C-alpha cells in the first residue's frame, strides 16, 4: 500500500481520542472542533474563553510539533486559491449544517455509538471520495 503509515496514524489517533476523553472528564465538553470554532466566532453562554484557549492550544500543538521535527508543515497542495476558498466555505458551512465534523461525529459521536454520527461520517467519506475521484479525472490540479 502506497504511503501507509500505520504506527503514526495509530499513535496520533490515540492522542486525539485521549484528548477527547480528557476534555470530557475535566471540562465536561465534547471535542467537536467545528463546534468549538463556531463558539469562538459566535460567543454565547460563558463558553467563549475555554474554546478560544482550546483553539490556541491547537495552534501551539502545531508549533510544538514543528519545532520537535525540525520543520514546519509542508503542503504540496495542487489547488488554486479559489478551490481552497470554496473548500473552506463548504467545510465551515457543512459542519454547522450537519452539527459536527470528523472530531465531533467521527470520534465523539461514533464513540457514543450514535447511528446519526455513523450516518454522517459514512456520508462525508462517500462524497469526499467522489470529490477526489472527480478531481483526479480533471487532472488532479484544480
Amino acid at each position, binding site marked *: 500500500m502506497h504511503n501507509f503509515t500505520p504506527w503514526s496514524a495509530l499513535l496520533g489517533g490515540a492522542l486525539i481520542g485521549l484528548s477527547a476523553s480528557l476534555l470530557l472528564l475535566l471540562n465536561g*465538553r465534547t471535542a467537536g472542533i*467545528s463546534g468549538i470554532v463556531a463558539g469562538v466566532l459566535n460567543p454565547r453562554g460563558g463558553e467563549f474563553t475555554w474554546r478560544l484557549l*482550546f483553539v490556541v492550544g491547537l495552534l501551539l500543538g502545531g508549533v510544538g510539533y514543528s519545532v520537535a521535527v525540525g520543520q514546519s508543515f509542508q503542503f504540496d497542495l495542487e489547488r488554486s486559491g479559489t478551490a481552497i476558498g470554496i473548500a473552506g*466555505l*463548504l467545510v465551515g458551512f457543512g459542519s454547522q*449544517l450537519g452539527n459536527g465534523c470528523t472530531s465531533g461525529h467521527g470520534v465523539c459521536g461514533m464513540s457514543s455509538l450514535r447511528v446519526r454520527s455513523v*450516518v454522517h461520517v459514512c456520508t462525508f467519506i462517500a462524497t469526499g471520495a467522489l*470529490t477526489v475521484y472527480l478531481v483526479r479525472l480533471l487532472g488532479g490540479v484544480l
Partner: protein
Amino acid sequence: MSTKADATAARFSVKRLVSALGIGILFGIGLAISGMTQPSKVFGFLDFFGDWDASLALVMGGAIAVHLTTRRLILRRSEPIFDSSFRVAGRLPIDGRLLAGAVLFGIGWGLGGVCPGPSITALSSGAWQMLLFVGAMCGGILLFQVTTKLWLGDGGGTT
C-alpha cells in the same frame, strides 16, 4: 443556573481554562502525528478507486478505541472534574439537514484535504493555503449562522 453551580463554576474557572489550553495542545500534537494535517494523506485515504492509503482509517480507529472505552466510565460520574455539569449533544434526528451538511462537508474535505482541527494546527506553518482555508471556513460558519438566523430564526449549528 443555581447559585451552587455558579460557585462551583467560579471556583474551577481557571482550572478549566488551563485544561482547555493543555488539551488543545495535546489534540494538535495528535493531529500532526496522525497525518490529518497533510492533504496528501487525506486524498490518499479518499482515493478508494486509485492508490488507497488506509492510514486515516487507523487514525479514526485509534481515536475511537481510546475514547469509546473511557467515555462510558467518565459519564458514570455525576459531574466533570472542573465543571458542575456535563454538556454533551442531545438526541437529534437523522434528517435532511444532517445529510446535506455531511455531503457539503465531504466535498469540502475532499477538495481541500483538511478539516477544521487540522487546518488550525497546520495554520502554525503560516502557509497561505491554510490561512485562506481557515478564513474561508470561518466565513462558512458565519454564513451559516447568518442564514439560519434570517431564515429560521434559530441559532442552529453545533452547541
